[in-house]
């Protein structure tokens, strides 16, 4: 037997908890006399219970980081949103505090006259001065990574003969990143990171290799004599398996 629409509506309102006392009394009187009404009420209760019990899903752990990396920095006069900008502009005090504490920031950028193109296995002891970031322009190239194991942004910026790879990444497990540059005359010129530990690095001719896990922000400095056009090919490996590949290009046209 078809149920009058009014009572179908009242049954729905009842199970939604959106029914007045008068409507409730009306509905109860109806249900007392209607088998079909009671059946519909029970069916909808079961359905609603099942809908309410659907399990919540957890967003991927890297999602928040990816979203924040895509949010443009405000109060930026130039289009620079890289690590160096954030280090030297308004948030400088935050990092300056880290310098003072001597615990949060390891800075190991050395002058180009102090290095050769021989491999570095350990750069943690290197010291030097940071090139003035005001000389750096906007990112020459930028990639967003949204893999399950690693996500974030890597940008490539340049100033004269300096190239800066700015890594802002989150990795859910230990990941190796191999950066190969096509121009073998380019050489590694320094490394800086915003954590005291967590990223290890080695460099050899035409290649810088990094290893990281968790949320990390760091920069790799390369010397590109004459500011020549080049490509940096990146491979991301987990347990020796390549999980992602990308490349960044520098074209000296601007």
């Amino acid at each position, binding site marked *: 037997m078809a149920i009058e629409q009014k009572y179908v509506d009242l049954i729905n309102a009842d199970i939604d908890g959106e029914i007045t006392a008068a409507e409730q009394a009306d509905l109860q009187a109806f249900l007392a006399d209607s088998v079909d009404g009671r059946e519909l009420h029970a069916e909808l209760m079961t359905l*609603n219970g099942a809908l309410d019990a659907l399990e919540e899903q957890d967003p991927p752990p890297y999602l928040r980081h990816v979203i924040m990396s*895509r949010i443009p920095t405000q109060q930026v006069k130039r289009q620079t949103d890289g690590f160096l900008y954030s280090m030297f502009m308004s948030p400088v005090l935050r990092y300056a505090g880290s310098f003072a504490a001597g615990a949060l920031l390891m800075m190991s950028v050395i002058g180009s006259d102090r290095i050769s193109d021989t491999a570095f296995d350990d750069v943690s002891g290197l010291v030097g001065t940071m090139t003035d970031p005001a000389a750096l322009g906007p990112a020459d190239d930028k990639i967003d990574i949204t893999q399950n194991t690693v996500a974030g942004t890597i940008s490539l910026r340049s100033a004269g003969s300096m190239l800066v790879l700015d890594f802002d990444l989150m990795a859910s497990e230990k990941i190796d990143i191999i950066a190969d540059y096509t121009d073998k005359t380019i050489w590694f010129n320094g490394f800086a990171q915003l954590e005291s530990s967590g990223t290890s690095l080695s460099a050899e001719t035409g290649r810088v290799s990094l290893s990281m896990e968790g949320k990390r922000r760091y920069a790799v400095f390369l010397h590109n004599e004459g500011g020549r056009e080049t490509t940096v090919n990146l491979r991301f490996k987990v347990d020796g398996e390549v999980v992602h590949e990308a490349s960044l290009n520098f074209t000296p046209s601007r």
Partner: protein
Amino acid sequence: MDKPDDTKLIERCIKGDRQAFESLLLQYEKPVYNAAYRMLHSPEDARDVTQNVFLKVYQNFGSFDPSRRFFSWIYRITLNESINWIDKANRLTSLDHETADQGRGPGQQASADELSKGLEAALMTIKADYRAVIVLKHLMGCSYGEIGDILEIPEKKVKSRLFTARQLLKDELTRTGMH
């Protein structure tokens, strides 16, 4: 449903405060992702839609009316983004009926897990407009009034859409022997 400090956070966001935005993101990431997931039934699509939602929120803070509720605004963006995503990808043509179509003899009772999977599959068989009210009511816990506010439709229409959606779900579950 707005948290008391949402208004202050939003004011700071409008001024370009990234930290305030991250706080909002922390608060709304999971509900937005879940709403998108229930609309799209795909973790990858839900992830992409969630990204788009927060980018749109950030880009459009200037047009947000502070006298209105933030959650209404962000959920509306979420549902619109999800529906646009469905339209764009024509997701409705590739529905996964696998679970829903598992044959079940009369009188056989579905387990809670089977019912849950059957329900998820059944949700994808109803029109996105109907799915949206189910998501808002049962996942986001919105009242009729709040759903009307989010979808910008009268409360009467919320009720009729919700009741029809339930009936369609019930029919689909009955058809597949899950109910």
